[in-house]
Structure formats: structure tokens, C-alpha cells
């Protein structure tokens, strides 16, 4: 009986082995469109880089907070925010107009800077304990892997454009028109199980409209 059981297990293992495919699909060609380029994707969605920069500022400040203690940290931050950081207009401007840091534009600066409340929104870019904020912001290492992963994990299924449209594609239907049901479903669904992944890929035309890419 014991032997029989043993043979049965060997047979089962053999069958499973024989039926299973040994080929491994290429993870990258399955996950990304063939012409995916992280920098190009980032150019369309600079907020992904802004998020990285803000993460770096938070991580840095978290360490400063640990070494100073919460009271000393808060005191230092308040002092810096209100004096050195806020009074250094040149730095604030450079931060604001950088598309990958502040995400603003030269044109918008005059209006933005007129209101102190707006300027205070830039506190989040302050590295506490240093005056080299701009240099440090620009030196935050670029993590292309995180940008690419975002496309796989979120962007693609949510219909994010991943490249600029070619001239021929400028006439393709827009996402709003072509995948109406999906766009609706995604905007309405609140629960995870309601989620409908977008099966298409999109490019963005010169006017900022996302259009379907036909394979």
C-alpha cells in the first residue's frame, strides 16, 4: 500500500512535469509596449518626478527630525520656512518654474508669487537645516525604475498616455470618445472589484489630448 502510494506520487509528479510549459515569457515585452521609454513617459507626466523629489525631501527631513528631536526640528523648520526660505525669491522662483520640481511655468510665476499663501505651498520643498535647497532638489537621484513600474502597475490600466503621438496618430480617436465605457466605469467605480482595466494604449498629441494607439 505504501509502495503504491509512492508510485502514484511519482506518476503524478511526472504528469505535472510533462504538462507544464518550460518556456518563460519575457516579462518586459509583456508589460511594456515595445517603444516604451521612461523619459518620454515622464515628460508627459512630470508629476511622477515631482513625487520622487517630494519623497526625497520628506525622507531627508525625517532623518533631521530623528537627530534633532521633534521640538528642535519644528522650531528649526518654522524659523527657516518663515525667514530664509520664504524670503529667497530667486530660489522659490527656480523651484516653481522647474517642470519636474514645482511643476509651474514662467508665465504663471507673476500671478503665483503675488500671493504669499501660494508661496507658502512651496514649504514642502524645504530641506530643513540647509540653505542649499535648490541644488539639493536638482540633485535628487532619478529613479527610472519607479517611473516605469508606475506605468505597469497603474498607468497602463488607467489609460495613461505613454508617448507623444506621431503625425499619423493625431487623427486617431481620443480616449474619451473611443473608450467611453471604460472611462466612465473607472470614474464611477469606488470599490476594487468594480475596476475595469483599460485594454488600450494611448499617445498624447500636441494639444494635450490622449488618443488611442492602433497596433
Amino acid at each position, binding site marked *: 500500500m505504501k509502495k503504491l502510494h509512492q508510485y502514484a506520487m511519482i506518476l503524478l509528479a511526472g504528469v505535472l512535469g510533462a504538462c507544464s510549459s518550460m518556456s518563460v515569457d519575457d516579462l518586459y515585452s509583456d508589460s511594456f509596449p515595445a517603444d516604451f521609454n521612461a523619459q518620454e513617459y515622464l515628460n508627459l507626466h512630470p508629476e511622477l518626478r*515631482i513625487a520622487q523629489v*517630494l*519623497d526625497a525631501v520628506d*525622507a531627508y527631513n525625517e532623518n533631521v527630525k530623528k537627530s534633532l528631536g521633534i521640538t528642535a526640528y519644528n522650531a528649526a523648520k518654522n524659523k527657516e520656512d518663515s525667514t530664509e526660505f520664504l524670503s529667497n525669491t530667486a530660489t522659490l522662483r527656480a523651484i516653481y518654474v522647474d517642470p519636474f520640481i514645482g511643476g509651474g511655468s514662467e508665465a504663471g510665476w507673476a500671478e503665483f508669487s503675488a500671493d504669499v499663501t501660494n508661496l507658502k505651498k512651496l514649504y514642502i520643498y524645504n530641506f530643513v537645516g540647509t540653505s542649499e535647497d535648490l541644488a539639493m532638489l536638482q540633485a535628487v537621484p532619478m529613479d527610472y525604475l519607479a517611473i516605469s513600474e508606475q506605468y505597469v502597475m*497603474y498607468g497602463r490600466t488607467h489609460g495613461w498616455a505613454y508617448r507623444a503621438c506621431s503625425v499619423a496618430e493625431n487623427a486617431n480617436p481620443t480616449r474619451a470618445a473611443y473608450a467611453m465605457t471604460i472611462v466612465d466605469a473607472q470614474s464611477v467605480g469606488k470599490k476594487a472589484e468594480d475596476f475595469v482595466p483599460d485594454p488600450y494604449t494611448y499617445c498624447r498629441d500636441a494639444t494635450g489630448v490622449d488618443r488611442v494607439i492602433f497596433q
Partner: protein
Amino acid sequence: MMFNKKISAFGLSSAILLSAATAFAAENNAEVVTQQKSLLEKLDSLNAAVLGLKINGTAKAGGLTSIASSDQFSSESPTQENQAFTDVNLRLTARPSSETMIDVQLRLHKDWQSAYDENNNPVIGHWFSYDGTILNKHVDFNLGYMRVGYTPLTIYTPQTEILQEPEIFAEKRREALEKRNLDTTSRRLLHGLNVAYQSGSVGVVDNITAQLTGARLRNTSKKIDQLFFDFDFSDRYLLGARVGADAYGAHLGVNYVGLLDRKMTRRSKIITDADTVYYDKNSVLSVDASFDSKKVLPQLPVTFGVNGEFAMSNWAVDRDYVIQEKQTSYTVAQRTINGKEVIYVSSLQKDADREVNEDYRKQDNGKSFYADLFVKGNISDVDFKVQAGYLQTDSNFWSELASSPVYQGRTTIFNANALYTSSLEESVFSVFGASSLENLYFNVYNSTTLHAGNLMSTGTNGNALGNKGAGDSPNMLARLDNNYKNGHFYRNAYSGTTMKKLEVEQDKLRDIDPSVSLALPFGLATPDRKGVTAKVDVNWADKVFFNARYNMLTQTYAKTGEATASALPLIEENKFTEMAVGLGVDIGAIAGLDNKILLQGSFSRATESAYLERQATHIVAGLTADVWGPISVLAGFQQYNKQFGKGGARSGLAFEDPTQTINLTDATESLILGGVRVKIAPMSYISLQYGILNNELSCFYNAFEALGNNTFSVSKNVLLADVTVNF
């Protein structure tokens, strides 16, 4: 605990037998005077049949004064050291059956110099063992402390050999060894379990033996001047086994010894960033063979034979340490950026400690071989033994348990509290210690009141008042519970600890101390040696004794540890020549007197051709004379001269480097010791001795903002008086 129960079970019989047993008590110690030996053995065999408890031991009361003088002492330095003590060693032996014996040895030590400080003087138990010969005398076992020896390449203790060592010195050396539970045999002090089986005669085979030994080894230098018995994370473990058979006067055996650092023991605390923990493994497998013609050719006036052994060793060290690295992890995160919810992938980087284990060093398959031919016999009252041998040991051979000598030297025994004029002098004497003659023959056993200032911790300040190390066990400070109790301390140059190969490599001064053999500092197991050895011993009717030794050995890689860029060791051939002759004459026996008047002397010289170009000359002379009745006169003289043709050493760094801070170039030391001994009872004496110790070190130095040559010398006058009683 089990033994205690057994003891109590026999308590009644013990009590009855106690008085009878002590009356007969004269346990067969290793050093029994020859004439009394057979009588004692008879008494012993009588005692062996008697169940119960027996107490015997020694009591010694004595005083010691050492007065030191030196130009290198500062003006406020203490120059005199006094010891006044009563030291009682109790040996309790309990026999639950005629086959087995529990042996406990206790030491009570009263130090009269600190008598008023003491409020609690504990008894130190320094030997605990359960021994026996069981199963119709086929199986011997030892449990607890034991002395075990296998072969010269496996488990062995290389001993210092001094030809015609006068009794006054031999006795002192034995006493210093005994304080560390050591003896003059080549067996090794261990604690654990040892079981040996002897078959007795089986057909043509005279004997089949099998032996198994398991022991815990202690390996740490800090123990040298600390309390004797405790457990430590430096403990390591030994497993030894051997089998052998004897037939027709021949013996063939296979021996194995393996020792290792147990990871769990070493890692009793969490390792921190600064720690690197090494785990050392060493194993040796050997085949030994011997032949003695006595068994097959008993009719010849001489017997001849051969002893030989071939061994292979493995040595490997791996280590654990902590590296700091960045760990990156990705998560999906959400942020509001310029008023817009953005889902992005956030990469989190954090510093993380990762524990790494790596192979550090490895030496596989080191080989060692020796063969000794001997002829011995007795022709018209002349006993003689002539030996000649060849040995060859690879540079990658390592056998730890056969290599560690018990003499470690380089401590200061007398006047350790002396103050020196400057850091240079202090450095010279702390590195080179007192003379090797002081180290070989003297020891101080002290009891000191413990307090926070001298209780040790691992903290940077070295004592319990210092900061506790970060990873230290909280029990470290529990040692303060010993506050104001009395602790027993040694100043003793002998130690039963074994040294790992890495430790030996670090401590190169050890093998430049010529009082340890220059050519074979680690006995026959000394790595990287090949050559011939010869020995002659002659004894004419216990009247005239003659010994001669001659060794010619070659070392291939004398620049030990130095490697070229390609990591190959530099070849520098070093030739050792060692010769020694000794002569002893008992004038009393020659003149037909009853009194022994033994005059002894020996001369030895050892040189090397390369490396440090060392040269050691040793002169020994002595007199042991029974003058009248119980009164004997003992005297001895020894002189060592050690020369370093290429400069000595300061630390484990490159030796020949002339820029080294302190280079010893010449050391001359001498000891004269003489005295009177009165026998008051068998093995009980009153003794009064006076000695002069001189130690002179010539150094070239470039240290402490001074450059030059100087001679540093210390002389000590020692007066010893004691009463020793054996009971």
C-alpha cells in the same frame, strides 16, 4: 549533583574510615621520591580497595621578599615586594566503589599582607574529576578535569627541556606549573569526558585500544590573570578519537582530533557594526606506528626500534561581520501634486545592516611526518638510549592541541608594581616582561580584595567603573556582587590555554623567546620545518648522567606572514642548529657514601642563519647535596644570553624593519639560587633560599621622541622561606 548523592550515601562509611584513611594517607603524586614509591604504591592498592572518603594534601606557609634595583626605576618607585601566605591544598578523594573515584581539590589561601582587608575568603575549587577503571579494568574514564595525551602531532604538550636542571630549579618550575593545574608531562590539561578501552591480549594481538575524548577548551588571553573557573564565550570544543593495536612489539594507531569554535557560544551577544567574529576549525588525522625489539628479541643486550607518525591537517577560519547597505523597496503611493491626485511608485531607500559570513582563511591538507630510530640497553651498569630522527612538516600544517606550549612567559612575576622613569622604559619592560628565568621558575599567588576598581569589565576603562560595552550582557556588572570578597590571582608564566593559529601569528614575540626551543617552539608539530634530530642519554648506575642533543632543521618561509604582491609567501631559508650537552655526577654515590652529592651542569646553544639571526646560549649548573641527617643544600645557577643579529621586535609587525619603535638586540639574564632544606617528615620540609636575578636588555629604539641605544637592566634579590607539609 549525582556524585553528591553518592557521596552522601557513603557518608557513614566515610566517617568511620576517615580516621583510618588519613593515617595511611600518602597519595601517589607524580613527584614521589623514588625510594618511597613502591611502598606508597602498595599502600595505595590497599587504599584502593577501601571505600569511602579520604583527605590529604599539602600545606605551605611561607614568606617571600623581592628587592629590585634598576637605573630605570623612577625615584618614587616601590622597590620591595613582600608576600606572606599560608596556602593549604586539600585533596578529597571519595570512592563510591573500588573501581571509581571522585577527586576534588580545594585551595585555601590566606594572604597575610591583606589580612585586615579581607572579610570573605572563599575556598577555590581547582580540580573536580570523576575517574575510574571499570568493566574488569578494560575501560578507563575521566569526567571533569583530566590530562589527556595522544601523539606528538595530535594531542600533546610541548615541554621546555632543560638538561640537568638542578633540583632547586626543577622543584620551582613544578610548583609554578602546579598552580595552573599543569604538570611536567606531555599530556594536555582538558575538561570534559575521556573514555579509553584496553582489550588486553586477544590471540596474537597484545592489546587493542580505543579512546574517545570530548572536551571544552578555553581560549582567551584575558583568563591568564583572572579567576580560574568560569564559562566564557571564547570556549571552544574538542572531539578526539583514536584506535590502535599492538602485536609482536609493534604498534599501529589511527588518531583524530578536531576542534572548533561553536557559533552559538561565540555569538552569545549581538554583533555590532564594529565587531568581526572569527570561527576557527582545526582537524588533524594521523597514523602512528612504532616498533620495539624487546618483545621479539629479548635475548639481545640492546633493544632497538622506531617511532613514527604521519599526520594531515585542515585549518579553516570563517568570520561574521556586519555591513551597512542601502535597501530599496517599491510601493504604490498617492500624493496630491498641484491640486491633482497622483498615483505613483515610490522608492524607499533605507540604511540596513546585513550580517555577512565569509570564508576568511583556509589551509587544506598540511602534512607532517617524523620517524625516530632508537637503540637502548644496559651494558655493565650503563643505561643508555640513543635516538636519531627525521622530521618534515609543511608550512600549512597546523595542529593546535599539539602546538600550544604551557610556558607562555613574558610576564613580570616579582616587583610588578615598580614604576619606571619614562614611557620608553615602561614600554620595554611591558613588552619583553621580566627575564625568562624569572618566568620559568617563579610564581606569585595572591589573594586580593575585590572592589569596583579592580573588577574587570569589557568597558573602555577596563574595570567595572568604566562604561559598559554596548553589546555587553547585563550580567557583566553582576560581577560587582563580588565586591569586597577576596579574589585569587596569579602571576604565573604558565597557562593551559591553547592558542589558535591566528593568535600565534599575531604574537610573534612568543617564538623569539629562546627559552622556548628556538628551532621547535611548538614541539614536533611546529609548521614549516624539516631536518634531523639526535639524542643521547646515558646513566651509569645513577652515579654519572650524560645527555646530548643535536638538532639541525630548516625553515623555508622564515619571513612568516610576509607575502609578495602576488600573495605568495617570500622564500627565505633559515637553518637552525641546536646543540646541548649535560653532565651530572653524584660524588656521594661514587665515593660510596649514603649522602647524595649531585653536581649538575649543562650547556646549550641555538642559532639560526636567517630571519632575525638569533643566537641563544644557555648555561646551567647546580648542586644538590645531603649534608647531614635531614639537612640538604641546594644551589643552582643559570645564564641565558640571547642575541638578535637583525634586531628584535616590538609587536607582531614586521621584525626586520629598523624603523620599528623598539628593537631588542641583546638580552642577558642570570639567576643564582641557593639554600638549605631540612626534612621534617616524609615529603615535608623547611626551606630557606636566597636568589639573585639579573636581566639586561640592550635595545635600539626610536620611540617616545627619543632615538638611540640603551641598556635596560633590573636586578632582583629574592629571599624565600617556607614550611611545606604533606599529609
